[in-house]
C-alpha cells in the first residue's frame, strides 16, 4: 500500500513504526489503507500544487500554519482547476506492459529518489513492482543497463549522452527522462592540506573523480581551469570508484576528490579529510545524477516508462522537501541500500554538517532533488566533453540534447503528476559567475583559455 503523506499537514514527517514500514505511524498506515486510490491520487496532485505555488518549504509551511490546511485548499481551488487536474492524473496511463522491473543504482545519496521510491511505495502506487539493485560501479551499471538486465538505471547525467554517441561504449540510443538531484557534490581535500585553500596552490595534486563521464569530472576541471590550472597538465585526475576514494585519501595516494556524497561526509566522519567547497559553489543548481533508460524501453513500453518516470518524479519531489530529509536518511541508510551510518546521511541530506575543520555548516540546499532535464544542461555537458577532448569534430548540440534529455516528455509527465513544470526546455545559468548561453556552444568553448580542443 502506497503512502502519500498529507501535503496539508504542516508537521508531516516520516518515522518508523507501522506494519509495512512505509508510514510514519500505525495511524498513518491505517489511514492509507482506508483511503482508496482515487484519494491518494488527489493528495499527490494537491501536494504537487502546493509545492509549485510555494516552492520554498519554509514559506509553504508558514502559510499552512497560518491559514490551516482546509482553508488553504479551498483558497487554492478557487483559482486553480485542481479537480480537473486530478481527473487527468487518474486517466493517464494505459495498461502497463510490464510490472516487475529491475532498476540499478549506485550507493550514493544522488540515488535517493530511485532507492526510497521502493521502500516508501512510490513505485507501487503506479502499479509497479520495482527491485532496486545495488551495483558496483558506473561501467558495470552501464553494461548491465545496455544488456537489459536492468529496465532502467541510475546514471551520471553525462552517461546517457556518452552512450548515445558511443563514447566509451558501443552506441546505443539512450534517454534521460529525469534528473535525480541537483548540487550535492563537494570537493574534499586531505586534512594535511587544510591550509591550502587557494586552488592556485594545488599544482601537482592528485585528484579522484568517480567516472570519466561525470559532472564531477567536468566541474572539477572547470573549477581548476578557472584558477589557471590545466587539469591535464598541472594536476592528475583519475577515475576512482567512490568507496576507494576515502581509502586512498587515508593512504595519501590522492590529495582530494570531487565526489558524490556520502563519500565527502564519510571522509570527514572517518577523520581523513575536510570539505573544501560544495559543488553548488561552482554551479548552483547543476544536475548530477540521472534516471535513465534505453530509447527502446521508452518506445516499446510507453505506459511502463511513463508510470516509472512519474514514480521517480514524485519521489524526487518528496525527497526535495526539507522536512522529509531526516526520515529519508534513516530509510536509505541500511545495508540493503547505501550501507552507511545514518549520521553521515543526515548531514548530507539536511545540510547541517561537520566540515572536517571543526565547524558546523548549515546549508539546507547542499543537495536538492529536481527532476526536470533541461536541454541546456545537456548542451553544457557536451561543451565540456568537447572542451576536454572526449568528443571531437562537429557536434549537433541541440539534436543530441533533445534526443537524450527528454524534457518535453518530462513536462507532460510532471503535469500528469500534478506538478508544475518549467515553461521552457532550456534555461540560462551561470557557472562560476560566467553565463552559459545554450544557443552558442562553440563560442562558449572558444571563450575558455584552458582547453584541449
Amino acid at each position, binding site marked *: 500500500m502506497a503512502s502519500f503523506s498529507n501535503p496539508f499537514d504542516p508537521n508531516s514527517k516520516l518515522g518508523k513504526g507501522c506494519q509495512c514500514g512505509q508510514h510514519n505511524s500505525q495511524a498513518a498506515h491505517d489511514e492509507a489503507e482506508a483511503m482508496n486510490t482515487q484519494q491518494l491520487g488527489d493528495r499527490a496532485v494537491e501536494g504537487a500544487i502546493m509545492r509549485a505555488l510555494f516552492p520554498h518549504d519554509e514559506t509553504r509551511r508558514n502559510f499552512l500554519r497560518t491559514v490551516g490546511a482546509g482553508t488553504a485548499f479551498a483558497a487554492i481551488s478557487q483559482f486553480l482547476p485542481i479537480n480537473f487536474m486530478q481527473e487527468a492524473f487518474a486517466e493517464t496511463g494505459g495498461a502497463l506492459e510490464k510490472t516487475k522491473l529491475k532498476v540499478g543504482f549506485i550507493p550514493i545519496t544522488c540515488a535517493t529518489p530511485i532507492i526510497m521510491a521502493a521502500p516508501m511505495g512510490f513505485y507501487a502506487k503506479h502499479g509497479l513492482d520495482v527491485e532496486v539493485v545495488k551495483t558496483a560501479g558506473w561501467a*558495470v551499471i552501464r553494461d548491465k543497463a545496455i*544488456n537489459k538486465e536492468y529496465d532502467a538505471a541510475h546514471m551520471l547525467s553525462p552517461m546517457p549522452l556518452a552512450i548515445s554517441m558511443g563514447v566509451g561504449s558501443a552506441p546505443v540510443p539512450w534517454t534521460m527522462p529525469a534528473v535525480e538531484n541537483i548540487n550535492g557534490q563537494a570537493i574534499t581535500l586531505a586534512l594535511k592540506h587544510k591550509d591550502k585553500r587557494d586552488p592556485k596552490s594545488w599544482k601537482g595534486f592528485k585528484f579522484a573523480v568517480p567516472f570519466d563521464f561525470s559532472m564531477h569530472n567536468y566541474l572539477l576541471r572547470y573549477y581548476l581551469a578557472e584558477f589557471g590550472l590545466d587539469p591535464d597538465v598541472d594536476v592528475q585526475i583519475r577515475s576512482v570508484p*567512490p568507496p576507494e576514494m576515502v581509502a586512498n585519501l*587515508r593512504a595519501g595516494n590522492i590529495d582530494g576528490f570531487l565526489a558524490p556524497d556520502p563519500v565527502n561526509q564519510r571522509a570527514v566522519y*572517518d*577523520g581523513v579529510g575536510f570539505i573544501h567547497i560544495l559543488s553548488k559553489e561552482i554551479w548552483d543548481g547543476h544536475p548530477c545524477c540521472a534516471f535513465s533508460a534505453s530509447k527502446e524501453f521508452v518506445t516499446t513500453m510507453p505506459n511502463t516508462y511513463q508510470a516509472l518516470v512519474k514514480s521517480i518524479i514524485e519521489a524526487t519531489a518528496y525527497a526535495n522537501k526539507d522536512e522529509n530529509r531526516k526520515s529519508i536518511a534513516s530509510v536509505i541508510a541500511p545495508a540493503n*541500500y547505501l*550501507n552507511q551510518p545514518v549520521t553521515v546521511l543526515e548531514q548530507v541530506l539536511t545540510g547541517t554538517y561537520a566540515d572536517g575543520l*571543526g*565547524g558546523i555548516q548549515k546549508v539546507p540546499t547542499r543537495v536538492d532533488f529536481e527532476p526536470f532535464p533541461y536541454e541546456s544542461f545537456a548542451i553544457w555537458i557536451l561543451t565540456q566533453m568537447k572542451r576536454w577532448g572526449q568528443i571531437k569534430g562537429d557536434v549537433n548540440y541541440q539534436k543530441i540534447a533533445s534526443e537524450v534529455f527528454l524534457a518535453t516528455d518530462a513536462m507532460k509527465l510532471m503535469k500528469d503528476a500534478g506538478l508544475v513544470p518549467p515553461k521552457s526546455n532550456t534555461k540560462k545559468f551561470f557557472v562560476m559567475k560566467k553565463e552559459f548561453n545554450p544557443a552558442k556552444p562553440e563560442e562558449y568553448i572558444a571563450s575558455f583559455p584552458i582547453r584541449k580542443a
Partner: protein
Amino acid sequence: MKNFKPWLPAMLSIIILLIFLGVWHLATLPTQGTIDPNLDPEYAKLLGASAAVGQKSTMPTPADVLDKLWVNVKDPFYDHGTNDKGIGIQIAYSLARVSLGFGLAALVAIPFGFLIGMSPLLYKALDPFIQVLKPISPLAWMPLALYTIKDSAISAIFVIFICSIWPMLINTAFGVSTVRREWINVARTLEVKPLRMAFKVILPAAAPTIMTGMRISLGIAWLVIVAAEMLVGGTGIGYFVWNEWNNLSITSVIVAILVIGIIGMILDLLLGKVTKWVSFKE
C-alpha cells in the same frame, strides 16, 4: 628432522596464531586520544567515534573481528531485501556459481583433454592456444563476457568456466598422453574395446593427474568468484566484500577474508580426499 611428536605441528600452528593475534591486537589498540577541549560537542556528534577524539579511524582489533564474525555466523541466512542478505546466503550463491562454472569446465575439459591427450597431433596443434589463453586474468575476461554474453550472471559463470578450464584440460591431456605404454599394451593384447580402454585403463591411470588439475582449477574458480562478484555485484561473497568495503567496514572485510579462506581450504580438502581415493602407488 622427522622425529617430532605428532602434536608438535599443531601446537606450533597455535603458537604462531597466538603471536599473530597478539601483534595484531597490540598494533590496533586504540591509543588514548585526548578530546580537544575546544571541540564543539555538537560537532563531535557528527563524526565517527575515532575522528571525534582527533584521530583517523583505525584498523579493527582481533576482538572486533571476532565480534563481527559472531554476528555474521549466528544469523547467516537473513534476507533484508535484494541488496542485503546473510553471509550464509551469499556463500551459497558463490558456491552455486563456482560449482556451475567449474562443473561445466570439467565437463568440457576432461573429455576434450582426453582427445588431446590421445592425439599427439592435436596436442601439439592446440598447445599454443592453451598457453596463450591460460594466463589471462579473470578480470580481463569480464568486460568481454559482459559485452558479448550481455548477462552478468552468466558472465560470472563464464569467467569461472574460462579460468578454471585450463589446468584441467592441460592435466587431463598430459595425464592421458603419459599413461604407461605397457598398460595400454596389456589392454591391447586382451583385445579391450576402445570405450572400455578409456574408462578402465586410461581414466584410472590418468586420474591422479586429472584430479591435481581439478584441484588447481577449483582453487582458481574460488579466487575468480570473489573478483567476479566484486565486479558484477548483486549476490555472493564477493559482493559481500564489496558492499562492506563500500561502507568502509574493514572489520567485515576481514571477516569475509577469513570466511573465503576457510571455504577455499574446505573445498581443497574435499578434492584432496577424492585425489587420495583415486591415487595409486606403483
